[in-house]
C-alpha cells in the first residue's frame, strides 16, 4: 500500500478544507447551520448507492463513496459546531423543519386542551446536539477509515459500508431530530443497522442469532419507549422538544406528577433496551459477533449512548419526576457494578470490553439519575474516545494474531505491535480514571454528584471504579505482557496493522489524553446549560471534592496493583483462587446464568406460543380452510363433471340421437331402386291431382247425382 502518498494526499486535502472553511467563517455568514439537514443525507446517499450498485464497485470505489460521505458529514457537522459556538450563548439554538411529516390535525390532551398534532421532519441544533454530532461524525469518520483497513480482506465489503453509512444516517437523524417521533425513527433505524451489522457474517449461526437477539431485546425496550411517546403526546399535547420543555417550565405541572412520572419511566424502559442496562443488557455481549469496527462504533461510541442522549434531551420531564430519576440512578449504579463483576472473569477480549461498556453506561445513567445531566454527557464524550480506541485496538490485536480472540492465547505482544500497545495503554489508563487523562475528569464529576445525592450510590460507583481499573489492566497484561501463550503458527504472522488502522488509533489516543480538559473549570457544563437548565442540580451539600478525587485515584491504583500482582508477578494465583471459590467462580463466569433464566422464562415461552399458533394454523386455517376449500372445490368439480358428462353432453347426444332416429325412415326412402321412386312419383301425382280437384271445387259431395 502506498502509505506515504495516501497520507500526504489526505493531509493536504484536510488542510485545504480547513482553510476554505475558516475563510468562509471569517465572512460572517453562516454557511453550515442552515444546511445541517445535509449532514444525515450524505451517508444516506452513499448507503443507497452501495445497496443498489455496490456489488459492481471495486473496494476503492466503495471506500471513496462511503468514507467520503462521512467526511462530508463531518465537515458540515464541525462547521455547524463552530458556527454555533461563534454565536452568543443565548442564541445557540437553530431549529427548522424540512416538511410536515404527519399533520394529523386537532386532538384533545388528557387535560382537555385542544392542540394541533403535527409531527415534522425537523432539525434542532443546540449545544447538546453539537456535542453528539461531533462525536458521531468525528469518531464515526475515524472508524470508517479504520474499517477500510480492517475489512479489506473480507467479503461483502460494499455491504458493510452500505450498512455502516445507513447507521450514520439513522444516528444523525436521531441526534438532529427536533421532535421525539423523528428521534424514534432514528432510534429504530440504528436498531435495524445494529441487527444488520451484528449479523454481518450471516452464514455463522452464532452471529445470526446474536443479531436477532439484539433486535428483539431492543424492540422490548422500544415498546416502552412508544408507550411513553403516546402518553407524552396525550399529556403534553406536543412531540416537539422545545415545545414540551416550554410547557413544563411554564409550570403547568406539579413536581412528582403521576403522568410525567409514568412517561419518564416508560422512556427509561426504552433507554434500558438501547443502552443495555438491567434488565435488557443481554444483547450487548452477544453483539460482539459482529466485526470489531461495528463494536467500536455502534456498541461503544454511538448507538448505545442514544439512550443517555434521549434522557438528557427530555430532562425536563425527568426533572419533574424525582421518583423516576431515583429509579434511573439505582438501575445505573446496579448495572455498573453488576457488569463489572462479570467483566472480571471473561476471557474473550471483546467480551471484557462489552461488559465494560455496560458498566460505563451505568455510570452515565447514574449521573443522569442524580441530576447531573451534563456530567453524563461529558462521560459519554470521553467514553466515546477511550472505548472506541479500546475496541479498535482490540481489533488491531485480533488482526495481528490472525483472528484469535481468547486472551489466554495471547501474551508478550507489547514489543511486537508497539503502536497498538501504546495506544491501548493510553485508553486503559483513561478508563481507569488516572489523571490527567480524559476518563478521570468525567468519572470524577459523576462520583462527586453521586456523593452529593446519596452516599450509597457513591460507594457503589467507587467500588466499580476500582473493579474497572482491575479488569482493564488484567486485559492489558494478559494481552500484551507476561509470557507468550500464542500458538506457534500464529506467532510467525504477528505484525502491526497498516496505517489506515493505526492512524485512527493514534488520533483517538491523543483525544483520550486531552479530551477531558474541556471539562476543567466547568466550561463544558456551562456550554450545555441552555439544555440542562431545567434539571435541578442536586442540592449543593458539602462536597469534599479533593478527598473524593484522591479516593478515586487511590482505588484505581489499587486495582491496577492487584492486576499487576495477579497477572504479572504471581501468574499461578488466579487459577488457584478460581479453584478455591469454585461455585462462585462458575456463577460469575457463566454471567449469573441470566441468559439461561431469560430463555426459560421468556424465550421458550414465546417459542411455545409460536408452536401452538403454528399448530392452530396448520390444523384449522390450513386444514379446514385451505385444504377444506380444496376438498370442497374437488367435490363440486366432481358434481360438475357428472353434470357436464350426463346432462350437457347428454343433451347434445340426445339431439344427435333424435336426428338419427328421425332419419331412419327417411333413409329407407333412398332405396336406390328406380321403381320405388316411380311409385313415389305416382303417389305424388295422386296427391297433387287430389289437391287441385279440391281447389277447383270437385269434392266428394258432388258425386251425388
Amino acid at each position, binding site marked *: 500500500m502506498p502509505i506515504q502518498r495516501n497520507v500526504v494526499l489526505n493531509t493536504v486535502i484536510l488542510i485545504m478544507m480547513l482553510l476554505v472553511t475558516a475563510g468562509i467563517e471569517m465572512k460572517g455568514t453562516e454557511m453550515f447551520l442552515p444546511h445541517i439537514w445535509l449532514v444525515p443525507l450524505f451517508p444516506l446517499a452513499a448507503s443507497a448507492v452501495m445497496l443498489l450498485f455496490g456489488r459492481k464497485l471495486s473496494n476503492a470505489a466503495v471506500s471513496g463513496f462511503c468514507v467520503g460521505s462521512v467526511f462530508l458529514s463531518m465537515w458540515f457537522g464541525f462547521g455547524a459546531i463552530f458556527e454555533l459556538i461563534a454565536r452568543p450563548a443565548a442564541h445557540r439554538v437553530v431549529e427548522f423543519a424540512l416538511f410536515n411529516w404527519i399533520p394529523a390535525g386537532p386532538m384533545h390532551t388528557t387535560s382537555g386542551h385542544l392542540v394541533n398534532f403535527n409531527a415534522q421532519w425537523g432539525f434542532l441544533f443546540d449545544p447538546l446536539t453539537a456535542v453528539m454530532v461531533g462525536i458521531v461524525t468525528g469518531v464515526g469518520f475515524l472508524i470508517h477509515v479504520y474499517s477500510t483497513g480492517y475489512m479489506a480482506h473480507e467479503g461483502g465489503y460494499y455491504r458493510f459500508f452500505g450498512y455502516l453509512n445507513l447507521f450514520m444516517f439513522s444516528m444523525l437523524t436521531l441526534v438532529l431530530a427536533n421532535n421525539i417521533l423523528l428521534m424514534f425513527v432514528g432510534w429504530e433505524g440504528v436498531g435495524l443497522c445494529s441487527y444488520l451489522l451484528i449479523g454481518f457474517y450471516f452464514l455463522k449461526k452464532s452471529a445470526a442469532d446474536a443479531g436477532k437477539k439484539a433486535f428483539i431485546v431492543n424492540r422490548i425496550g422500544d415498546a416502552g419507549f412508544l408507550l411513553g411517546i403516546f402518553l407524552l403526546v396525550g399529556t403534553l399535547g406536543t412531540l416537539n422538544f422545545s415545545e414540551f420543555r416550554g410547557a413544563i417550565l411554564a409550570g403547568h405541572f406539579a413536581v412528582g406528577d403521576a403522568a410525567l412520572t409514568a412517561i419518564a419511566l416508560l422512556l427509561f424502559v426504552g433507554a434500558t433496551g438501547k443502552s443495555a442496562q438491567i434488565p435488557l443488557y443481554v444483547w450487548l455481549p452477544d453483539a460482539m459477533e459482529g466485526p470489531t469496527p461495528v463494536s467500536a462504533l455502534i456498541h461503544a461510541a454511538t448507538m448505545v449512548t442514544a439512550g443517555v442522549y434521549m434522557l438528557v434531551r427530555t430532562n425536563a420531564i425527568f426533572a419533574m419526576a424525582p421518583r423516576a430519576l431515583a429509579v434511573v440512578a439505582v438501575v445505573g449504579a446496579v448495572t455498573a457494578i453488576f457488569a463489572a463483576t462479570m467483566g472480571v472473569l471473561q476471557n474473550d477480549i471483546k467480551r471484557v470490553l462489552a461488559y465494560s461498556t455496560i458498566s460505563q453506561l451505568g455510570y452515565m445513567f447514574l449521573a443522569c439519575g442524580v441530576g447531573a445531566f451534563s456530567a453524563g454527557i461529558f462521560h459519554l464524550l470521553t467514553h466515546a474516545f477511550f472505548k472506541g480506541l479500546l475496541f479498535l485496538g482490540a481489533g488491531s490485536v485480533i488482526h495481528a494474531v490472525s483472528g484469535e480472540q481468547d486472551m489466554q492465547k495471547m501474551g508478550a505482544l507489547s514489543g511486537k505491535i508497539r503502536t497498538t500497545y501504546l495506544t491501548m495503554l493510553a485508553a486503559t489508563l483513561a478508563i481507569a480514571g488516572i489523571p490527567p487523562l480524559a476518563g478521570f475528569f468525567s468519572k470524577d464529576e459523576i462520583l462527586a454528584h453521586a456523593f452529593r445525592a446519596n452516599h450509597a450510590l457513591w460507594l457503589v460507583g467507587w467500588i466499580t471504579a476500582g473493579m474497572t481499573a482491575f479488569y482493564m489492566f488484567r486485559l492489558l497484561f494478559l494481552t500484551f505482557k507476561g509470557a507468550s501463550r500464542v500458538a506457534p503458527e500464529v506467532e510467525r504472522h504477528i505484525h502491526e496493522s497498516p496505517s489506515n488502522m493505526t492512524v485512527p488509533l493514534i488520533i483517538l489516543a491523543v483525544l483520550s489524553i486531552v479530551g477531558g480538559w474541556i471539562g476543567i473549570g466547568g466550561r463544558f457544563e456551562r456550554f450545555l446549560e441552555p439544555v440542562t437548565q431545567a434539571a435541578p442540580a442536586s442540592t449543593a451539600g458539602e462536597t469534599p471534592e479533593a478527598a473524593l478525587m484522591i479516593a478515586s485515584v487511590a482505588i484505581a491504583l489499587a486495582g491496577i496493583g492487584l492486576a499487576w500482582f495477579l497477572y504479572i508477578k504471581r501468574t499461578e494465583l488466579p487459577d488457584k483462587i478460581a479453584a478455591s471459590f469454585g461455585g462462585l467462580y462458575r456463577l460469575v463466569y457463566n454471567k449469573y446464568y441470566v441468559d439461561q433464566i431469560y430463555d426459560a422464562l421468556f424465550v421458550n415461552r414465546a417459542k411455545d406460543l409460536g408452536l401452538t399458533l403454528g399448530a392452530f394454523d396448520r390444523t384449522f386455517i390450513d386444514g379446514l380452510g385451505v385444504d377444506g376449500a380444496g376438498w370442497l372445490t374437488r367435490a363440486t368439480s366432481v358434481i360438475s363433471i357428472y353434470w357436464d358428462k350426463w346432462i350437457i353432453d347428454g343433451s347434445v347426444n340426445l339431439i344427435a340421437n333424435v336426428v338419427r332416429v328421425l332419419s331412419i325412415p327417411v*333413409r329407407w326412402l333412398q332405396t336406390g*331402386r*328406380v*321403381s320405388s321412386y316411380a311409385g313415389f312419383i*305416382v303417389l305424388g301425382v295422386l296427391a297433387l291431382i287430389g289437391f287441385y280437384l279440391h281447389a277447383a271445387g270437385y269434392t266428394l259431395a258432388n258425386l251425388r247425382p
Partner: protein
Amino acid sequence: MIGTGHYLFLSLALFLIGVVGVVTRRNVIIILMSIELILNAVNINLVAFSRLVGSVEGHVFAIFIITDAAAEAAVGLGIIIAFFRNRETVLADEMDLLKW
C-alpha cells in the same frame, strides 16, 4: 255416339296400365315400354279434345310429345346399354348404386 267420355276413359285405362307397368315390373326395358304407353295415352287424350274443340293445336302438342318420346327412348336405351356393360343386368332392383 262416341262422346268425350269414351276417349277419356280409354286414355285413362291405357295410362293406368302404363303406371302399373312402371311401378311393378323389374325389367328396365319393360319399364321404358310402359312409359311409352303412358305417353300414348296422353296423346289420345289430346287428340280427342282437339277434335271436339275444333282446333289443331292438340295435334301439334301430340307431335311434340312423340318427338320427345323418341329422344327419351334413345337416351334411355343408351343408358341401359351402358349400365348393362358394367353390371350385366337389366333388372331395376339390381341397379341400386344410390342405395344408402
